[in-house]
């Protein structure tokens, strides 16, 4: 078959010749420009998951409480009282690399729409961010722009930004990672799926007018970046959080009406994707009269309109007799709505411009027909254990570590986010996990995002398992039981065997950990081609997790509470320093085997923790992670404003591994002296090693004769500005 299309045209839509042939086979002819553009968008990596789909099938997605797994705008899980928690995490890396403020802002906007499209009121935002070192001006520009964009959107919209994480590594220079997670709540009977399953329904496009912004955004997110990427700036959209707030309130009111069939947000690949997916999920077709769509400027072609990624737009599908009621809602919020088409029984998407057919494609081919890619994978070699430098001056190391960009206080960042609006924030940002009240109940939702990039870089399988285990541990430290996972897989160019190998190993680790901890994956997103001028980002899986606390009065904080309380380390410390913040501080290369997670031990530790918290034995709990034991202890001291006296820590491992090693499956807890026997018994029952660390109290942080530093000096180091 002749390829009746120029290579340049294929490059424009980022499809290859095989894919072009598949299109011709599917529709029985050469596609016209608009059709090719539509295929390019929906068959992009970003929309179609053509490289990751086969791997993602390994993930456990079911569970007794799962109401909606992957495939919808967001996942949903039952939390009792007739309520469901709805959540998803998504990347906006490519736009943020080009225009950090708007890239990050519209990332937040997009994930909010995914949640309220499900009928849920957004109650929290979290952000997982990675940047290059702030020593360079460009990385600083990206850092400040992204932080301002997240705050700018979330603060104006009125959804609290309650958590997340920021890491810095040279591997993210010029290619920052911006992942936004949104969590919402909805009554079961109001949970809405974006499925247009009734022919004859009316299709309304609501919200912003359609402009030329973001054309080819999905395609842009599916190719590597180079020096020409700056020219793609028009592919970055501009956000309007005020309009989004009105859209959200309108959608939540619509959700209460009879005769509303579906609500779908317009995200990547704009109207093409939204309309196609809506109709295809319902096994129906859709007709669109493209001239009915209000535009921001003159001279826009059907191609521009169908592929625009203008923000703050929703498709609403209603029964014809419900259109008037829907319009009343839009009028109340002064929102503009165009009636742009109808749902049909044809199983095709047909676009007409003033009555003339401009595109006519079977939906199955467009939405589901992309040939899956299975690139060659090469697996990283297991690295030998490295020789560790002995720690010379523990106090200086502690102060340097806690002042380092990856460990210092995040307050300068999160105080620019409204983390309290909606009056539900029990634990805000800065702790292991955020804790929110479920309004109208005495229940809490614990929320976190996690992913240590260095472990994953050393071993994608182990590192991803560690990310799941750490997220679950963070949730458990608040007293909540982890219930479900969302994930965002950020990787480089999968056409390179080493990168595809990372992806394959990481997903295998994700699947194994989620199975072992019985956590269904209910939503997620894959961001590939995070490559800039042939430099690939380190493999970066980010785990978003939600936990449920049945009784908020049982919540467990992260900071020391009472002088005289005894502090224990739960879990086992091994001679593990590879991938640690300590070695990075010493300037050692990232090599060796990262800490290994025993999921069996992790399960027991988490069960023991929940048991102890439920019985009120533990007064505070804090996960031991980046920086190791001394950093965890110092943080608990700083959170609570109480000093700590350790008589001296001795163990079967080297001093540096005990102080700064990052063995997994460990938690620091404080306990009132009279409850110690109970703690010992509980830990013995669950076979969890317990190590007495010291006593809460005083104005100093003291460890044997190695360290004696005042809490004030410790705080000063911790609060080093960015």
């Amino acid at each position: 078959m002749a390829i009746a299309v120029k290579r340049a045209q294929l490059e424009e839509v980022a499809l290859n010749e095989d894919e072009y042939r598949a299109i011709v086979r599917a529709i029985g002819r050469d596609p016209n420009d608009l059709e090719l553009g539509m295929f390019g968008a929906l068959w992009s990596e970003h929309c179609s998951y053509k490289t990751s789909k086969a791997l993602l099938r390994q993930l456990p997605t079911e569970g007794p409480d799962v109401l909606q797994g992957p495939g919808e705008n967001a996942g949903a899980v039952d939390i009792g009282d007739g309520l469901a928690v709805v959540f998803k995490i998504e990347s906006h890396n490519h736009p943020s690399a080009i225009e950090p403020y708007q890239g990050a802002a519209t990332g937040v906007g997009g994930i909010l729409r995914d949640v309220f499209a499900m009928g849920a009121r957004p109650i929290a935002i979290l952000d997982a961010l990675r940047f290059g070192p702030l020593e360079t001006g460009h990385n600083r520009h990206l850092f400040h722009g992204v932080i301002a964009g997240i705050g700018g959107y979330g603060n104006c919209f009125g959804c609290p930004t309650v958590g997340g994480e920021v890491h810095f590594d040279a591997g993210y220079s010029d290619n920052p990672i911006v992942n936004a997670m949104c969590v919402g709540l909805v009554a079961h009977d109001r949970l809405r799926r974006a499925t247009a399953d009734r022919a004859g329904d009316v299709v309304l496009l609501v919200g912003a007018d359609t402009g030329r912004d973001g054309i080819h955004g999905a395609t842009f997110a599916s190719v590597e970046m180079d020096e020409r990427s700056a020219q793609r700036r028009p592919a970055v959209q501009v956000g309007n959080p005020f309009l989004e707030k009105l859209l959200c309130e309108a959608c939540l009111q619509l959700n209460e009406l009879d005769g509303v069939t579906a609500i779908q947000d317009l995200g990547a690949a704009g109207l093409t994707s939204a309309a196609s997916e809506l109709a295809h999920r319902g096994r129906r077709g859709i007709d669109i009269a493209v001239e009915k769509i209000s535009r921001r400027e003159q001279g826009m072609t059907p191609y521009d309109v169908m592929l625009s990624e203008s923000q703050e737009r929703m498709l609403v599908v209603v029964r014809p007799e419900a259109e008037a009621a829907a319009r009343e809602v839009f009028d109340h919020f002064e929102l503009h709505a165009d009636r742009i088409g109808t749902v049909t029984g044809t199983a095709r998407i047909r676009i007409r411009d003033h009555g003339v057919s401009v595109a006519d494609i079977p939906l199955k081919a467009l939405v589901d027909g992309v040939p899956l890619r299975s690139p060659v994978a090469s697996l990283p070699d297991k690295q030998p254990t490295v020789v560790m430098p002995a720690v010379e001056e523990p106090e200086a190391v502690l102060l340097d570590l806690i002042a380092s960009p990856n460990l210092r206080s995040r307050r300068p960042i999160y105080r620019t986010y409204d983390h309290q609006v909606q009056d539900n924030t029990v634990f805000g940002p800065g702790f292991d996990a955020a804790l929110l009240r479920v309004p109208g109940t005495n229940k809490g939702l614990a929320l976190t995002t996690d992913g240590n990039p260095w472990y994953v870089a050393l071993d994608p399988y182990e590192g991803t398992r560690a990310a799941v285990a750490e997220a679950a541990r963070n949730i458990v430290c608040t007293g909540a039981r982890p219930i479900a996972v969302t994930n965002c897989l950020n990787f480089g160019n999968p056409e390179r065997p080493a990168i595809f190998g990372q992806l394959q190993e990481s997903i295998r680790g994700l699947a194994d950990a989620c199975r072992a901890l019985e956590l269904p994956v209910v939503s997620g997103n894959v961001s590939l081609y995070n490559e800039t001028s042939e430099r690939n980002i380190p493999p970066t899986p980010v785990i978003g997790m939600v936990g449920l606390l049945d009784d908020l009065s049982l919540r467990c904080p992260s900071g020391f509470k009472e002088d005289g309380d005894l502090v224990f380390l739960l879990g086992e410390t091994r001679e593990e320093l590879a991938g640690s913040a300590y070695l990075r501080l010493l300037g050692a290369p990232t090599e060796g085997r990262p800490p290994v997670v025993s999921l069996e031990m992790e399960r027991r530790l988490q069960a023991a923790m929940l048991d102890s918290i439920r019985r009120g034995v533990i007064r505070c709990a804090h996960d031991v992670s980046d920086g190791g034991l001394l950093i965890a202890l110092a943080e608990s001291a700083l959170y609570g404003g109480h000093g700590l006296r350790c008589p001296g820590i001795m163990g079967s491992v080297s001093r540096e591994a005990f102080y700064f090693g990052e063995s997994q499956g460990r938690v620091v807890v404080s306990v009132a002296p009279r409850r110690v026997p109970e703690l010992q018994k509980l830990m013995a029952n669950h076979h969890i090693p317990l190590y007495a660390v010291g006593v809460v109290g005083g104005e100093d942080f003291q460890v044997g004769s190695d360290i004696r530093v005042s809490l004030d000096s410790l705080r000063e180091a911790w609060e080093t500005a960015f």
Partner: protein
Amino acid sequence: MRTGIIVFPGTWSDRDCAHAVGEILGQPTRYVDYREERLDDLDLVILPGGFSYGDYLRCGAIARFAPVMEAVTDFANRGGLVLGICNGFQILQEARLLPGALLRNASCEFRCEWVNLRVEQSESAFSLDSRPGQVLRIPISHGEGNFFADRETLEAIERNGQVVFRYCAQDGRVTAESNPNGSLSNIAGIANARGNVVGMMPHPERACEDLLGGTDGLMVFRSAIHALARVAA
């Protein structure tokens, strides 16, 4: 206390205020649409926080022209109790119901954090239940809360005892370090001369439950209840 909570396009503290006044304090509340023109059924009107009209222009500059604002002005002039919180404070200034202006924070950044406020006078309808010198812990959440007034206005506000709250340290000292946004004289909240209209940047509705970190904000709403009882008596 029949309480009306005004909802402009872009308001988001409306639900939080209804939670505090309605659910926690058990007072009858209703939302007032920005297009409404009558407030006769109300004892207290709250202009809550948010980003009215996106605050893309000067904060509050558009909301001030919403139909309901004429009714709010009449209501205030007749002695009705009016509380503006954050964006609501900005709107009350734009409507000339309160003096001064709120500029961009001196840090040029949005700030969301708990602050300490010293009560300066307990005569206003929203500080009756406190005593001068008392320190309250209430959060702020704004990008433009930097109180400014020309010298004459500022002197008049101070002379008339219209300053209700000042940012302060934990022990009540008014210091530069405790000023989160650059406000002149650390001013966080002011009243009109009559004391029935108060605007404040901090969010008392966020400080009404121990679960959320403190209950000092209750004083503001309870004062209004007592102010009404006093009028009735």
